[in-house]
């Protein structure tokens, strides 16, 4: 039928794995914002949820790295990480292979997307699902943009991927929800873990909320690395959601929680009519 929901949120593994080390009041405020997003998501009665993630070498490695990938299976598994470490139980997650296939055929008209009939979800998908669909009651279609193994997917292609996802969602009879996950500025998995550039994050989220395509695509990887760390490369997932939804964004939560290693973010975006 159409795209019925669009949002973005953080996915850092500390959000669940190091929950006990965070300041409780701040952590719970963030969790509440995620639960509110879950309620809004469910209210749109989606038949499937596309999660655009920036995965971290769980399925895709430099032996064969796609710029974009979409899952095409009836069932996935996750988390790939030690469940004790992530504090999310390992389980099977329902997909929808037939719907995936129809979406992929549409996307392929404009973006050369790889497809994968096997996919083990890492924290990039499992942490958002833990809060957004805690009952795992919406079939998931995973998507990946290469934000990890340079040369990375160019930002304008992440935009094109978002547009292609929108066209595909509008071309199928099902109701499709879309969530992009990633960090803004952050330096995860280094001794800097916890560092964020709040001013840079505010600017990025402002450009995202205004859906300012030109401003969003004007970041260079050299500047992003300098100002926002290697974690900043994940803005590609947020950019693809802005391209897909086409509307204005609302930021529901945006505060650094250092032990989670990221400026924690929850935001949704209106879905504009396509012209």
């Amino acid at each position, binding site marked *: 039928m159409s795209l019925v929901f669009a949002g973005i949120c953080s996915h850092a*593994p*500390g959000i669940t794995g190091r929950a006990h080390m965070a300041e409780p009041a701040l952590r719970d405020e963030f969790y509440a914002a995620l639960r509110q997003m879950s309620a809004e998501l469910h209210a749109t009665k989606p038949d499937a949820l596309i999660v655009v993630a920036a995965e971290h070498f769980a399925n895709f*490695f*430099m032996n064969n790295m796609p710029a974009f990938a979409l899952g095409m299976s009836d069932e996935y598994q996750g988390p790939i*990480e030690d469940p004790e470490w992530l504090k999310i139980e390992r389980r099977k997650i329902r997909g929808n292979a037939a719907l995936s296939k129809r979406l992929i055929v549409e996307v392929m008209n404009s973006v050369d997307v790889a497809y994968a009939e096997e996919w083990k979800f890492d924290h990039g998908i499992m942490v958002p699902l833990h809060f957004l669909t805690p009952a795992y009651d919406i079939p998931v279609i995973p998507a990946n943009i290469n934000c*990890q193994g340079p040369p990375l997917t160019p930002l304008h292609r992440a935009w094109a991927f978002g547009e292609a996802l929108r066209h595909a969602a509008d071309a199928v009879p099902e109701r499709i929800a879309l969530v992009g996950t990633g960090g803004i500025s952050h330096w995860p998995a280094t001794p*800097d*873990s916890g560092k964020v550039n709040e001013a840079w994050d505010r600017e990025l989220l402002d450009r995202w909320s205004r859906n300012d395509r030109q401003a969003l695509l004007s970041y260079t990887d050299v500047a992003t690395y300098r100002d926002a760390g290697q974690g900043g490369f994940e803005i590609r997932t947020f950019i693809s959601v802005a391209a897909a939804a086409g509307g204005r964004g609302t930021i529901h939560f945006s505060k650094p929680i250092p032990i989670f290693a990221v400026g924690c973010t929850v935001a949704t975006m209106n879905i504009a009519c396509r012209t």
Partner: protein
Amino acid sequence: MSLYGLQKFLYELNRDARVQERYRDDRAALLTQYPLTDEERAAIEAGDIGLIYVLGANGQLLMHFAAYLGMPWADYIKAMRDGIVTHGPVRAGVYTMTTGMDEKVAGV
């Protein structure tokens, strides 16, 4: 420099229970399957997180090796700092350290 082989090993260890088993039971033979320098092989055999960090392994791969070795979060962060004290700055990749040695942004 075979950083690719080092990272390929970490990638396969992180996602494959059989590789994890062989790392426990048959480590030397397992490691012959990857193109590794002597320094890389020794670092993997010893589970030397600090040295592997300095060698330039992608942090997302290394983080899970540390978790697999059972290192608590604070010890893992400390091991990376200690690696820099012992071996000098990160030699490759994008997971370099930009904070001061005592900065401890997240308190660990």
